[in-house]
Protein backbone atom coordinates (compact mmCIF):
# COMPACT_ATOMS: atom_id res chain seq x y z
CA UNK A 1 0.00 0.00 0.00
CA UNK A 2 1.98 2.97 -1.16
CA UNK A 3 1.12 6.56 -1.76
CA UNK A 4 3.48 6.73 -4.67
CA UNK A 5 1.33 6.82 -7.76
CA UNK A 6 1.64 3.74 -9.80
CA UNK A 7 1.30 3.41 -13.47
CA UNK A 8 -2.38 2.86 -13.11
CA UNK A 9 -2.79 6.28 -11.60
CA UNK A 10 -1.05 7.85 -14.56
CA UNK A 11 -3.37 6.10 -16.93
CA UNK A 12 -6.34 7.47 -15.08
CA UNK A 13 -4.95 10.97 -15.04
CA UNK A 14 -4.21 10.86 -18.73
CA UNK A 15 -7.68 9.67 -19.53
CA UNK A 16 -9.21 12.42 -17.42
CA UNK A 17 -7.06 14.96 -19.22
CA UNK A 18 -8.15 13.69 -22.57
CA UNK A 19 -11.74 13.61 -21.54
CA UNK A 20 -11.88 17.05 -20.07
CA UNK A 21 -9.77 19.02 -22.44
CA UNK A 22 -10.18 17.26 -25.72
CA UNK A 23 -13.28 15.12 -25.76
CA UNK A 24 -15.58 17.68 -24.28
CA UNK A 25 -14.66 20.44 -26.76
CA UNK A 26 -15.29 17.96 -29.52
CA UNK A 27 -18.80 17.39 -28.26
CA UNK A 28 -19.39 21.08 -27.88
CA UNK A 29 -18.30 21.72 -31.39
CA UNK A 30 -21.61 20.44 -32.52
CA UNK A 31 -23.14 23.40 -30.83
CA UNK A 32 -22.29 26.13 -33.19
CA UNK A 33 -22.83 24.18 -36.32
CA UNK A 34 -26.34 23.43 -35.23
CA UNK A 35 -28.87 24.95 -37.58
CA UNK A 36 -30.96 26.50 -34.87
CA UNK A 37 -28.36 29.16 -34.03
CA UNK A 38 -28.15 31.14 -37.21
CA UNK A 39 -26.96 34.31 -35.53
CA UNK A 40 -23.70 32.79 -34.40
CA UNK A 41 -20.64 33.19 -36.55
CA UNK A 42 -19.04 29.98 -37.61
CA UNK A 43 -15.51 30.92 -36.70
CA UNK A 44 -16.51 31.96 -33.26
CA UNK A 45 -15.17 29.67 -30.55
CA UNK A 46 -17.81 27.84 -28.59
CA UNK A 47 -18.79 29.01 -25.12
CA UNK A 48 -16.86 27.53 -22.26
CA UNK A 49 -18.32 25.77 -19.35
CA UNK A 50 -21.54 27.55 -19.44
CA UNK A 51 -25.08 27.28 -20.24
CA UNK A 52 -25.15 26.75 -23.93
CA UNK A 53 -27.33 29.21 -25.77
CA UNK A 54 -29.97 27.22 -27.48
CA UNK A 55 -33.05 28.34 -29.34
CA UNK A 56 -34.84 29.07 -26.12
CA UNK A 57 -32.19 31.33 -24.72
CA UNK A 58 -31.02 33.24 -27.74
CA UNK A 59 -33.89 35.59 -28.32
CA UNK A 60 -35.34 35.30 -24.87
CA UNK A 61 -33.14 38.01 -23.34
CA UNK A 62 -33.55 41.27 -25.10
CA UNK A 63 -31.97 43.05 -22.19
CA UNK A 64 -28.76 41.12 -22.66
CA UNK A 65 -28.92 41.85 -26.36
CA UNK A 66 -29.57 45.52 -25.75
CA UNK A 67 -26.80 45.70 -23.23
CA UNK A 68 -24.42 44.25 -25.76
CA UNK A 69 -25.49 46.76 -28.36
CA UNK A 70 -25.03 49.61 -25.92
CA UNK A 71 -21.56 48.47 -25.11
CA UNK A 72 -20.84 48.55 -28.76
CA UNK A 73 -22.29 52.02 -29.11
CA UNK A 74 -20.51 53.37 -26.08
CA UNK A 75 -17.08 51.99 -26.71
CA UNK A 76 -14.72 54.49 -28.31
CA UNK A 77 -13.33 53.78 -31.74
CA UNK A 78 -9.73 52.82 -31.56
CA UNK A 79 -7.05 51.13 -33.48
CA UNK A 80 -7.77 47.77 -31.92
CA UNK A 81 -11.35 47.96 -32.99
CA UNK A 82 -10.27 48.75 -36.51
CA UNK A 83 -8.04 45.72 -36.37
CA UNK A 84 -10.94 43.70 -35.07
CA UNK A 85 -13.32 44.75 -37.77
CA UNK A 86 -10.71 44.47 -40.47
CA UNK A 87 -10.14 40.88 -39.50
CA UNK A 88 -13.73 40.04 -40.11
CA UNK A 89 -15.20 40.58 -36.75
CA UNK A 90 -14.08 37.72 -34.64
CA UNK A 91 -11.20 36.29 -32.74
CA UNK A 92 -10.14 36.60 -29.20
CA UNK A 93 -6.81 38.27 -29.81
CA UNK A 94 -8.22 41.60 -30.89
CA UNK A 95 -11.09 41.35 -28.49
CA UNK A 96 -8.58 41.08 -25.70
CA UNK A 97 -6.82 44.12 -27.11
CA UNK A 98 -10.12 45.97 -27.20
CA UNK A 99 -10.65 44.95 -23.62
CA UNK A 100 -7.30 46.39 -22.62
CA UNK A 101 -8.18 49.62 -24.31
CA UNK A 102 -11.82 50.08 -23.50
CA UNK A 103 -11.91 48.58 -20.08
CA UNK A 104 -15.65 48.91 -20.11
CA UNK A 105 -16.21 45.49 -21.51
CA UNK A 106 -15.78 46.82 -25.00
CA UNK A 107 -15.88 43.57 -26.79
CA UNK A 108 -17.80 44.25 -29.90
CA UNK A 109 -20.93 42.60 -31.15
CA UNK A 110 -20.13 39.08 -30.19
CA UNK A 111 -23.37 37.36 -29.91
CA UNK A 112 -22.13 34.61 -27.72
CA UNK A 113 -23.88 33.45 -24.68
CA UNK A 114 -22.97 34.52 -21.21
CA UNK A 115 -19.69 33.14 -20.07
CA UNK A 116 -18.95 32.54 -16.43
CA UNK A 117 -15.52 33.08 -14.91
CA UNK A 118 -12.93 30.74 -16.30
CA UNK A 119 -11.52 28.15 -14.00
CA UNK A 120 -7.99 28.31 -15.24
CA UNK A 121 -5.82 28.64 -18.26
CA UNK A 122 -7.27 26.95 -21.20
CA UNK A 123 -5.14 24.35 -22.92
CA UNK A 124 -5.88 22.57 -26.04
CA UNK A 125 -6.07 23.02 -29.73
CA UNK A 126 -7.35 26.51 -29.81
CA UNK A 127 -4.99 28.22 -27.43
CA UNK A 128 -2.26 28.95 -29.95
CA UNK A 129 -4.59 31.29 -31.72
CA UNK A 130 -5.11 33.62 -28.86
CA UNK A 131 -3.13 35.77 -26.52
CA UNK A 132 -1.77 34.45 -23.28
CA UNK A 133 -4.29 34.22 -20.58
CA UNK A 134 -3.96 37.65 -19.08
CA UNK A 135 -6.45 39.51 -21.17
CA UNK A 136 -8.79 36.64 -21.49
CA UNK A 137 -9.06 36.05 -17.80
CA UNK A 138 -9.79 39.62 -17.04
CA UNK A 139 -12.27 39.80 -19.80
CA UNK A 140 -14.09 36.76 -18.60
CA UNK A 141 -14.27 38.22 -15.14
CA UNK A 142 -16.03 41.24 -16.56
CA UNK A 143 -18.65 39.00 -18.01
CA UNK A 144 -20.21 38.20 -14.73
CA UNK A 145 -20.52 41.85 -13.73
CA UNK A 146 -23.69 43.74 -14.11
CA UNK A 147 -23.78 47.15 -15.67
CA UNK A 148 -26.33 49.11 -13.67
CA UNK A 149 -25.52 52.36 -15.43
CA UNK A 150 -26.77 50.94 -18.64
CA UNK A 151 -29.90 49.60 -17.08
CA UNK A 152 -32.28 52.38 -17.95
CA UNK A 153 -30.69 52.94 -21.32
CA UNK A 154 -30.85 49.23 -21.90
CA UNK A 155 -34.52 49.23 -21.16
CA UNK A 156 -34.98 52.13 -23.56
CA UNK A 157 -33.22 50.20 -26.23
CA UNK A 158 -35.12 47.08 -25.37
CA UNK A 159 -38.29 49.04 -25.87
CA UNK A 160 -37.10 50.07 -29.28
CA UNK A 161 -34.86 47.30 -30.53
CA UNK A 162 -34.64 48.80 -33.95
CA UNK A 163 -32.89 51.90 -32.74
CA UNK A 164 -29.82 52.81 -34.72
CA UNK A 165 -26.55 51.95 -33.15
CA UNK A 166 -23.06 52.83 -34.22
CA UNK A 167 -21.61 50.28 -36.54
CA UNK A 168 -17.89 49.83 -36.70
CA UNK A 169 -17.88 47.84 -39.88
CA UNK A 170 -16.58 50.85 -41.83
CA UNK A 171 -12.94 51.33 -40.99
CA UNK A 172 -12.64 53.90 -43.76
CA UNK A 173 -15.09 56.27 -42.07
CA UNK A 174 -13.63 56.40 -38.62
CA UNK A 175 -10.08 57.53 -39.41
CA UNK A 176 -11.32 60.41 -41.53
CA UNK A 177 -13.12 61.83 -38.57
CA UNK A 178 -10.15 61.16 -36.38
CA UNK A 179 -7.68 63.05 -38.45
CA UNK A 180 -6.41 66.01 -36.51
CA UNK A 181 -7.69 64.72 -33.24
CA UNK A 182 -5.14 64.09 -30.50
CA UNK A 183 -3.76 60.63 -30.26
CA UNK A 184 -5.94 58.49 -28.14
CA UNK A 185 -4.53 57.35 -24.82
CA UNK A 186 -5.40 53.83 -25.74
CA UNK A 187 -2.80 53.86 -28.44
CA UNK A 188 0.09 53.69 -26.01
CA UNK A 189 -1.43 50.63 -24.44
CA UNK A 190 -1.90 49.23 -27.86
CA UNK A 191 1.78 49.83 -28.55
CA UNK A 192 2.73 48.05 -25.36
CA UNK A 193 0.55 45.19 -26.32
CA UNK A 194 1.85 44.88 -29.80
CA UNK A 195 5.51 45.55 -29.56
CA UNK A 196 6.75 44.24 -26.24
CA UNK A 197 9.45 41.85 -25.32
CA UNK A 198 7.25 38.79 -25.33
CA UNK A 199 8.45 37.33 -28.55
CA UNK A 200 5.57 34.92 -28.80
CA UNK A 201 3.08 37.72 -28.59
CA UNK A 202 5.10 39.84 -30.91
CA UNK A 203 5.22 37.09 -33.47
CA UNK A 204 1.52 36.49 -33.25
CA UNK A 205 0.67 40.11 -33.67
CA UNK A 206 3.44 41.22 -35.98
CA UNK A 207 1.44 40.23 -38.94
CA UNK A 208 -1.74 41.58 -37.46
CA UNK A 209 -0.40 44.97 -36.51
CA UNK A 210 -0.79 46.46 -39.93
CA UNK A 211 -4.14 45.07 -40.78
CA UNK A 212 -5.87 48.40 -41.13
CA UNK A 213 -6.87 48.75 -44.77
CA UNK A 214 -4.16 50.31 -46.85
CA UNK A 215 -6.31 53.24 -47.90
CA UNK A 216 -6.61 54.56 -44.35
CA UNK A 217 -4.18 56.95 -42.71
CA UNK A 218 -3.80 54.66 -39.71
CA UNK A 219 -2.17 52.02 -41.86
CA UNK A 220 0.68 54.33 -42.69
CA UNK A 221 0.90 55.61 -39.16
CA UNK A 222 1.91 52.14 -38.03
CA UNK A 223 5.10 52.57 -40.03
CA UNK A 224 6.04 55.66 -38.04
CA UNK A 225 5.48 54.21 -34.63
CA UNK A 226 8.88 55.03 -33.18
CA UNK A 227 10.12 57.36 -30.51
CA UNK A 228 13.23 59.50 -30.59
CA UNK A 229 15.24 57.16 -28.40
CA UNK A 230 14.35 54.17 -30.59
CA UNK A 231 15.56 55.90 -33.73
CA UNK A 232 18.76 56.94 -31.98
CA UNK A 233 19.29 53.40 -30.71
CA UNK A 234 18.89 51.99 -34.19
CA UNK A 235 21.33 54.51 -35.62
CA UNK A 236 23.81 53.65 -32.90
CA UNK A 237 23.39 49.99 -33.66
CA UNK A 238 24.17 50.54 -37.30
CA UNK A 239 27.27 52.62 -36.64
CA UNK A 240 28.68 50.33 -33.94
CA UNK A 241 27.73 46.84 -35.05
CA UNK A 242 28.12 44.27 -32.35
CA UNK A 243 29.75 41.21 -33.85
CA UNK A 244 27.37 38.33 -33.90
CA UNK A 245 24.22 40.25 -33.12
CA UNK A 246 21.59 40.59 -35.76
CA UNK A 247 20.45 44.18 -36.34
CA UNK A 248 16.91 43.17 -37.14
CA UNK A 249 16.41 40.94 -34.15
CA UNK A 250 18.16 43.26 -31.77
CA UNK A 251 16.80 46.63 -32.72
CA UNK A 252 13.90 46.36 -35.04
CA UNK A 253 12.12 43.48 -33.35
CA UNK A 254 9.06 43.42 -35.52
CA UNK A 255 8.56 47.16 -35.38
CA UNK A 256 10.08 48.32 -38.62
CA UNK A 257 9.70 51.99 -39.34
CA UNK A 258 9.92 54.10 -42.43
CA UNK A 259 11.06 57.25 -40.67
CA UNK A 260 14.71 56.22 -40.42
CA UNK A 261 15.22 54.96 -43.97
CA UNK A 262 13.45 57.91 -45.57
CA UNK A 263 15.15 60.70 -43.66
CA UNK A 264 18.56 59.07 -43.65
CA UNK A 265 18.36 58.76 -47.45
CA UNK A 266 17.26 62.38 -47.81
CA UNK A 267 20.03 63.60 -45.53
CA UNK A 268 22.56 61.51 -47.42
CA UNK A 269 21.43 62.97 -50.74
CA UNK A 270 21.94 66.51 -49.55
CA UNK A 271 25.13 65.65 -47.67
CA UNK A 272 26.68 64.18 -50.79
CA UNK A 273 25.56 67.04 -53.02
CA UNK A 274 26.66 69.77 -50.62
CA UNK A 275 29.95 68.11 -49.73
CA UNK A 276 30.76 67.43 -53.36
CA UNK A 277 30.13 71.02 -54.23
CA UNK A 278 32.24 72.28 -51.34
CA UNK A 279 35.07 69.90 -52.10
CA UNK A 280 35.18 70.94 -55.74
CA UNK A 281 35.17 74.55 -54.66
CA UNK A 282 38.15 74.06 -52.37
CA UNK A 283 40.06 72.01 -54.90
CA UNK A 284 39.70 74.54 -57.69
CA UNK A 285 39.91 77.60 -55.46
CA UNK A 286 43.14 79.15 -56.52
CA UNK A 287 42.72 78.82 -60.23
CA UNK A 288 42.11 82.00 -62.16
CA UNK A 289 39.89 80.30 -64.73
CA UNK A 290 37.63 78.71 -62.20
CA UNK A 291 34.13 80.08 -61.84
CA UNK A 292 32.12 78.59 -59.03
CA UNK A 293 28.90 76.87 -60.01
CA UNK A 294 26.37 75.47 -57.53
CA UNK A 295 25.92 72.26 -59.58
CA UNK A 296 22.31 71.91 -58.57
CA UNK A 297 21.58 69.20 -61.11
CA UNK A 298 23.64 66.79 -59.12
CA UNK A 299 21.10 66.87 -56.31
CA UNK A 300 18.50 65.17 -58.45
CA UNK A 301 21.01 62.63 -59.70
CA UNK A 302 22.10 61.86 -56.15
CA UNK A 303 18.49 61.55 -55.05
CA UNK A 304 17.65 59.13 -57.83
CA UNK A 305 20.66 56.96 -57.15
CA UNK A 306 20.33 56.75 -53.42
CA UNK A 307 16.60 56.25 -53.27
CA UNK A 308 16.77 53.62 -56.00
CA UNK A 309 19.48 51.79 -54.09
CA UNK A 310 17.70 51.99 -50.75
CA UNK A 311 14.36 50.77 -52.09
CA UNK A 312 14.94 48.62 -55.17
CA UNK A 313 17.78 46.53 -53.85
CA UNK A 314 15.75 45.54 -50.76
CA UNK A 315 12.88 44.68 -53.07
CA UNK A 316 15.09 42.40 -55.14
CA UNK A 317 16.63 40.87 -52.05
CA UNK A 318 13.24 40.28 -50.49
CA UNK A 319 11.99 38.61 -53.65
CA UNK A 320 15.09 36.46 -53.75
CA UNK A 321 14.72 35.42 -50.11
CA UNK A 322 11.07 34.59 -50.67
CA UNK A 323 11.98 32.46 -53.63
CA UNK A 324 14.65 30.59 -51.72
CA UNK A 325 12.30 30.25 -48.79
CA UNK A 326 9.88 28.40 -50.98
CA UNK A 327 12.61 25.98 -51.99
CA UNK A 328 14.51 25.49 -48.77
CA UNK A 329 12.22 25.33 -45.81
CA UNK A 330 14.30 26.54 -42.93
CA UNK A 331 15.45 29.85 -44.28
CA UNK A 332 14.62 32.80 -42.09
CA UNK A 333 12.87 35.33 -44.23
CA UNK A 334 12.53 38.94 -43.27
CA UNK A 335 9.63 41.09 -44.25
CA UNK A 336 10.15 43.71 -46.92
CA UNK A 337 9.97 46.57 -44.43
CA UNK A 338 12.60 45.03 -42.21
CA UNK A 339 14.99 44.76 -45.14
CA UNK A 340 14.29 48.37 -46.11
CA UNK A 341 14.95 49.33 -42.49
CA UNK A 342 18.30 47.55 -42.40
CA UNK A 343 19.42 49.12 -45.64
CA UNK A 344 18.25 52.56 -44.60
CA UNK A 345 19.96 52.51 -41.24
CA UNK A 346 23.12 51.00 -42.69
CA UNK A 347 23.43 54.02 -44.98
CA UNK A 348 23.72 56.31 -42.00
CA UNK A 349 27.48 55.88 -41.68
CA UNK A 350 27.93 57.40 -45.13
CA UNK A 351 26.70 60.78 -43.93
CA UNK A 352 29.76 61.64 -41.84
CA UNK A 353 31.88 59.90 -44.47
CA UNK A 354 30.54 62.22 -47.16
CA UNK A 355 31.30 65.23 -45.02
CA UNK A 356 34.81 64.00 -44.39
CA UNK A 357 35.32 63.42 -48.10
CA UNK A 358 35.69 67.18 -48.45
CA UNK A 359 39.31 66.69 -47.39
CA UNK A 360 41.10 66.69 -50.73
CA UNK A 361 43.53 63.86 -50.07
CA UNK A 362 43.22 60.65 -52.01
CA UNK A 363 44.58 58.47 -49.23
CA UNK A 364 42.18 59.92 -46.69
CA UNK A 365 39.23 59.40 -49.01
CA UNK A 366 40.02 55.78 -49.75
CA UNK A 367 40.65 55.00 -46.10
CA UNK A 368 37.24 56.48 -45.35
CA UNK A 369 35.67 54.37 -48.09
CA UNK A 370 37.13 51.20 -46.64
CA UNK A 371 36.18 52.07 -43.11
CA UNK A 372 32.57 52.96 -43.85
CA UNK A 373 32.21 49.97 -46.12
CA UNK A 374 33.40 47.71 -43.31
CA UNK A 375 30.96 49.19 -40.83
CA UNK A 376 27.83 49.27 -42.94
CA UNK A 377 28.74 46.11 -44.81
CA UNK A 378 29.14 44.23 -41.56
CA UNK A 379 25.67 45.30 -40.47
CA UNK A 380 24.23 43.92 -43.69
CA UNK A 381 26.28 40.73 -43.61
CA UNK A 382 25.38 39.97 -40.01
CA UNK A 383 21.75 40.48 -40.84
CA UNK A 384 21.59 38.39 -43.97
CA UNK A 385 24.09 35.64 -43.31
CA UNK A 386 21.81 33.84 -40.82
CA UNK A 387 19.07 34.10 -43.36
CA UNK A 388 20.89 32.30 -46.13
CA UNK A 389 23.41 30.10 -44.38
CA UNK A 390 21.11 27.09 -44.43
CA UNK A 391 20.91 27.29 -48.14
CA UNK A 392 23.27 25.86 -50.70
CA UNK A 393 26.76 27.05 -49.80
CA UNK A 394 27.52 28.69 -53.09
CA UNK A 395 24.22 30.49 -53.32
CA UNK A 396 24.63 31.79 -49.79
CA UNK A 397 28.09 33.11 -50.49
CA UNK A 398 26.98 34.58 -53.79
CA UNK A 399 24.09 36.40 -52.10
CA UNK A 400 26.19 37.92 -49.36
CA UNK A 401 28.88 38.76 -51.87
CA UNK A 402 26.39 40.57 -54.09
CA UNK A 403 25.08 42.58 -51.16
CA UNK A 404 28.56 43.74 -50.22
CA UNK A 405 29.50 44.39 -53.84
CA UNK A 406 26.49 46.61 -54.47
CA UNK A 407 27.19 48.50 -51.29
CA UNK A 408 30.78 49.07 -52.31
CA UNK A 409 29.68 50.12 -55.77
CA UNK A 410 27.40 52.75 -54.29
CA UNK A 411 30.08 54.35 -52.15
CA UNK A 412 32.80 54.26 -54.78
CA UNK A 413 30.43 55.53 -57.43
CA UNK A 414 29.36 58.46 -55.28
CA UNK A 415 32.95 59.31 -54.53
CA UNK A 416 33.93 59.19 -58.19
CA UNK A 417 30.98 61.15 -59.54
CA UNK A 418 30.38 63.87 -56.99
CA UNK A 419 33.89 64.53 -55.82
CA UNK A 420 36.51 65.61 -58.33
CA UNK A 421 39.88 64.01 -58.00
CA UNK A 422 42.17 66.05 -55.81
CA UNK A 423 44.95 67.49 -57.88
CA UNK A 424 48.50 66.56 -57.32
CA UNK A 425 50.51 69.75 -57.40
CA UNK A 426 53.84 69.35 -58.97
CA UNK A 427 55.10 71.98 -61.36
CA UNK A 428 53.67 71.58 -64.82
CA UNK A 429 56.16 70.20 -67.31
CA UNK A 430 57.04 72.33 -70.27
CA UNK A 431 56.67 70.40 -73.47
CA UNK A 432 58.20 71.81 -76.60
CA UNK A 433 55.65 71.63 -79.35
CA UNK A 434 56.45 70.59 -82.89
CA UNK A 435 56.14 74.01 -84.43
CA UNK A 436 58.45 75.64 -81.93
CA UNK A 437 56.04 77.21 -79.50
CA UNK A 438 56.02 75.90 -75.97
CA UNK A 439 52.99 74.43 -74.45
CA UNK A 440 52.45 74.20 -70.76
CA UNK A 441 50.89 70.89 -70.03
CA UNK A 442 48.69 71.11 -67.01
CA UNK A 443 46.99 68.26 -65.26
Amino acid at each position, binding site marked *: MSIIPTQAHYVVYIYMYIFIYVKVPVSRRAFYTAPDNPHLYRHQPPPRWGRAAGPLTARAEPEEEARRRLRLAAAPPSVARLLWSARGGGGEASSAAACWLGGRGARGPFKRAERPVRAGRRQGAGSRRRLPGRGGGRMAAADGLQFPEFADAASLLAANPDATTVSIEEPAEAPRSQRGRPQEPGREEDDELLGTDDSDKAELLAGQKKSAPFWTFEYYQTFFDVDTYQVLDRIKGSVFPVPGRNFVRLYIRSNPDLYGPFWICTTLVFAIAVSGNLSNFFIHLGKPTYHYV*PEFRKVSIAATTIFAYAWLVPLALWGFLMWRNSKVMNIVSYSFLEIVCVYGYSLFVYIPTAILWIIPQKVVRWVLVMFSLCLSGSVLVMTFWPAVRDDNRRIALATVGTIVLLHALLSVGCLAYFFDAPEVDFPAPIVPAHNGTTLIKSQ
Partner: protein
Amino acid sequence: MKRQIKVTSLFQMRDLKAVGKKFVHVMYPKKSSALLRDWDLWGPLVLCVSLALMLQGGSADSKEDGGPQFAEVFVIIWFGAVVITLNSKLLGGTISFFQSLCVLGYCVLPLTVAMLVCRLVLLAGSGTISFIVRLIVVMAMFGWSTLASTAFLADSQPPNRKALVVYPIFLFYFVISWMILTFTPQ
Protein backbone atom coordinates in the same frame (compact mmCIF):
# COMPACT_ATOMS: atom_id res chain seq x y z
CA MET B 1 -25.50 93.65 -43.38
CA LYS B 2 -21.84 93.23 -44.16
CA ARG B 3 -22.04 89.58 -43.26
CA GLN B 4 -24.43 88.85 -46.05
CA ILE B 5 -22.19 90.21 -48.74
CA LYS B 6 -20.35 87.43 -50.47
CA VAL B 7 -16.68 87.70 -51.22
CA THR B 8 -16.56 89.13 -54.66
CA SER B 9 -12.86 89.09 -55.31
CA LEU B 10 -10.27 86.50 -54.59
CA PHE B 11 -8.05 88.77 -52.59
CA GLN B 12 -9.17 91.71 -50.52
CA MET B 13 -7.64 94.30 -48.26
CA ARG B 14 -8.69 92.21 -45.32
CA ASP B 15 -6.59 89.33 -46.59
CA LEU B 16 -3.66 91.65 -47.08
CA LYS B 17 -3.90 92.84 -43.51
CA ALA B 18 -4.07 89.24 -42.29
CA VAL B 19 -1.00 88.33 -44.31
CA GLY B 20 0.86 91.34 -42.98
CA LYS B 21 -0.06 90.46 -39.42
CA LYS B 22 1.29 86.96 -39.92
CA PHE B 23 4.54 88.33 -41.31
CA VAL B 24 4.95 90.32 -38.12
CA HIS B 25 4.22 87.22 -36.07
CA VAL B 26 6.93 85.32 -37.86
CA MET B 27 9.53 88.01 -37.34
CA TYR B 28 8.70 88.24 -33.66
CA PRO B 29 7.62 84.71 -32.79
CA LYS B 30 5.59 84.68 -29.65
CA LYS B 31 3.32 81.92 -28.48
CA SER B 32 0.34 83.28 -30.30
CA SER B 33 -1.94 81.15 -32.35
CA ALA B 34 -2.76 83.67 -35.03
CA LEU B 35 -0.71 81.74 -37.55
CA LEU B 36 -2.38 78.51 -36.68
CA ARG B 37 -5.97 79.55 -36.23
CA ASP B 38 -6.65 81.27 -39.50
CA TRP B 39 -4.20 79.84 -41.90
CA ASP B 40 -3.84 81.09 -45.39
CA LEU B 41 -1.47 80.25 -48.17
CA TRP B 42 -1.11 83.69 -49.75
CA GLY B 43 1.96 84.59 -47.76
CA PRO B 44 3.81 81.36 -48.54
CA LEU B 45 2.98 81.75 -52.21
CA VAL B 46 4.29 85.31 -52.36
CA LEU B 47 7.44 84.34 -50.46
CA CYS B 48 8.10 81.28 -52.56
CA VAL B 49 7.64 83.12 -55.85
CA SER B 50 9.86 86.01 -54.80
CA LEU B 51 12.56 83.69 -53.51
CA ALA B 52 12.48 81.64 -56.71
CA LEU B 53 12.63 84.80 -58.82
CA MET B 54 15.59 86.13 -56.88
CA LEU B 55 17.41 82.82 -57.20
CA GLN B 56 16.76 82.86 -60.88
CA GLY B 57 19.68 84.80 -62.15
CA GLY B 58 22.31 82.34 -61.06
CA SER B 59 22.62 80.26 -64.18
CA ALA B 60 26.04 79.38 -65.50
CA ASP B 61 27.14 78.87 -69.08
CA SER B 62 25.65 75.46 -69.33
CA LYS B 63 22.31 74.86 -67.77
CA GLU B 64 23.63 71.67 -66.23
CA ASP B 65 25.86 73.20 -63.65
CA GLY B 66 23.95 76.27 -62.75
CA GLY B 67 21.91 77.14 -59.77
CA PRO B 68 18.39 75.98 -59.23
CA GLN B 69 15.83 77.00 -61.79
CA PHE B 70 12.55 78.61 -60.87
CA ALA B 71 10.65 75.35 -61.04
CA GLU B 72 13.22 73.57 -58.92
CA VAL B 73 13.00 76.12 -56.12
CA PHE B 74 9.24 76.06 -56.25
CA VAL B 75 9.11 72.27 -56.14
CA ILE B 76 11.64 72.02 -53.36
CA ILE B 77 9.80 74.47 -51.15
CA TRP B 78 6.29 73.15 -51.67
CA PHE B 79 7.15 69.48 -51.91
CA GLY B 80 9.44 69.77 -48.93
CA ALA B 81 6.73 71.47 -46.87
CA VAL B 82 4.22 68.78 -47.83
CA VAL B 83 6.62 66.00 -46.90
CA ILE B 84 7.40 67.58 -43.54
CA THR B 85 3.71 68.02 -42.82
CA LEU B 86 2.99 64.41 -43.69
CA ASN B 87 5.89 63.33 -41.54
CA SER B 88 4.61 65.24 -38.55
CA LYS B 89 1.10 63.90 -38.99
CA LEU B 90 2.30 60.34 -39.40
CA LEU B 91 4.27 60.65 -36.18
CA GLY B 92 1.08 61.55 -34.41
CA GLY B 93 0.91 65.33 -34.58
CA THR B 94 -2.36 67.09 -33.96
CA ILE B 95 -1.86 69.96 -36.32
CA SER B 96 -3.84 70.02 -39.49
CA PHE B 97 -2.35 69.75 -42.95
CA PHE B 98 -2.85 73.30 -44.13
CA GLN B 99 -1.95 74.85 -40.82
CA SER B 100 1.42 73.20 -40.99
CA LEU B 101 1.91 74.25 -44.60
CA CYS B 102 1.02 77.79 -43.61
CA VAL B 103 3.55 77.90 -40.78
CA LEU B 104 6.35 76.38 -42.82
CA GLY B 105 5.67 78.73 -45.70
CA TYR B 106 5.53 81.85 -43.58
CA CYS B 107 8.77 80.96 -41.81
CA VAL B 108 10.59 81.21 -45.13
CA LEU B 109 10.30 85.00 -44.66
CA PRO B 110 13.64 85.46 -42.84
CA LEU B 111 15.39 83.53 -45.60
CA THR B 112 13.77 85.72 -48.25
CA VAL B 113 15.09 88.75 -46.38
CA ALA B 114 18.51 87.07 -46.36
CA MET B 115 18.30 86.54 -50.12
CA LEU B 116 17.54 90.20 -50.61
CA VAL B 117 20.49 91.20 -48.46
CA CYS B 118 22.75 88.76 -50.33
CA ARG B 119 21.80 90.21 -53.67
CA LEU B 120 22.49 93.71 -52.44
CA VAL B 121 25.85 92.66 -51.03
CA LEU B 122 26.73 90.91 -54.27
CA LEU B 123 26.02 94.12 -56.14
CA ALA B 124 28.80 95.70 -54.13
CA GLY B 125 31.33 92.99 -54.88
CA SER B 126 31.95 89.27 -54.68
CA GLY B 127 35.15 88.91 -52.73
CA THR B 128 35.93 87.18 -49.49
CA ILE B 129 34.47 89.92 -47.32
CA SER B 130 31.16 89.81 -49.11
CA PHE B 131 31.15 86.05 -48.73
CA ILE B 132 31.71 86.31 -45.01
CA VAL B 133 28.95 88.89 -44.66
CA ARG B 134 26.61 86.71 -46.67
CA LEU B 135 27.53 83.66 -44.62
CA ILE B 136 26.77 85.41 -41.35
CA VAL B 137 23.48 86.83 -42.59
CA VAL B 138 22.29 83.53 -44.03
CA MET B 139 23.24 81.58 -40.94
CA ALA B 140 21.44 84.03 -38.69
CA MET B 141 18.30 83.95 -40.80
CA PHE B 142 18.42 80.16 -41.02
CA GLY B 143 18.50 79.97 -37.24
CA TRP B 144 15.65 82.44 -36.99
CA SER B 145 13.49 80.48 -39.45
CA THR B 146 14.07 77.19 -37.72
CA LEU B 147 13.40 78.60 -34.28
CA ALA B 148 10.27 80.40 -35.43
CA SER B 149 8.74 77.36 -37.08
CA THR B 150 9.72 75.12 -34.18
CA ALA B 151 8.08 77.53 -31.77
CA PHE B 152 4.84 77.24 -33.68
CA LEU B 153 4.89 73.57 -34.50
CA ALA B 154 6.56 71.84 -31.59
CA ASP B 155 3.63 72.07 -29.22
CA SER B 156 1.40 69.96 -31.37
CA GLN B 157 3.68 66.94 -31.35
CA PRO B 158 3.78 64.07 -28.91
CA PRO B 159 6.50 64.86 -26.38
CA ASN B 160 8.68 61.83 -27.03
CA ARG B 161 8.89 62.51 -30.75
CA LYS B 162 9.65 66.21 -30.84
CA ALA B 163 13.19 65.76 -32.12
CA LEU B 164 11.94 63.47 -34.88
CA VAL B 165 9.68 66.25 -36.11
CA VAL B 166 12.11 69.14 -35.69
CA TYR B 167 14.96 67.52 -37.62
CA PRO B 168 13.25 67.54 -41.06
CA ILE B 169 12.35 71.20 -40.54
CA PHE B 170 16.00 71.88 -39.81
CA LEU B 171 17.02 70.01 -42.98
CA PHE B 172 14.44 71.88 -45.08
CA TYR B 173 15.65 75.32 -44.05
CA PHE B 174 19.26 74.19 -44.35
CA VAL B 175 18.72 73.27 -48.00
CA ILE B 176 17.07 76.62 -48.72
CA SER B 177 19.92 78.43 -46.96
CA TRP B 178 22.42 76.48 -49.00
CA MET B 179 20.69 77.53 -52.21
CA ILE B 180 20.78 81.16 -51.06
CA LEU B 181 24.41 81.06 -49.97
CA THR B 182 25.70 79.45 -53.14
CA PHE B 183 23.94 81.91 -55.38
CA THR B 184 26.41 83.49 -57.76
CA PRO B 185 25.22 85.98 -60.30
CA GLN B 186 26.27 85.47 -63.86
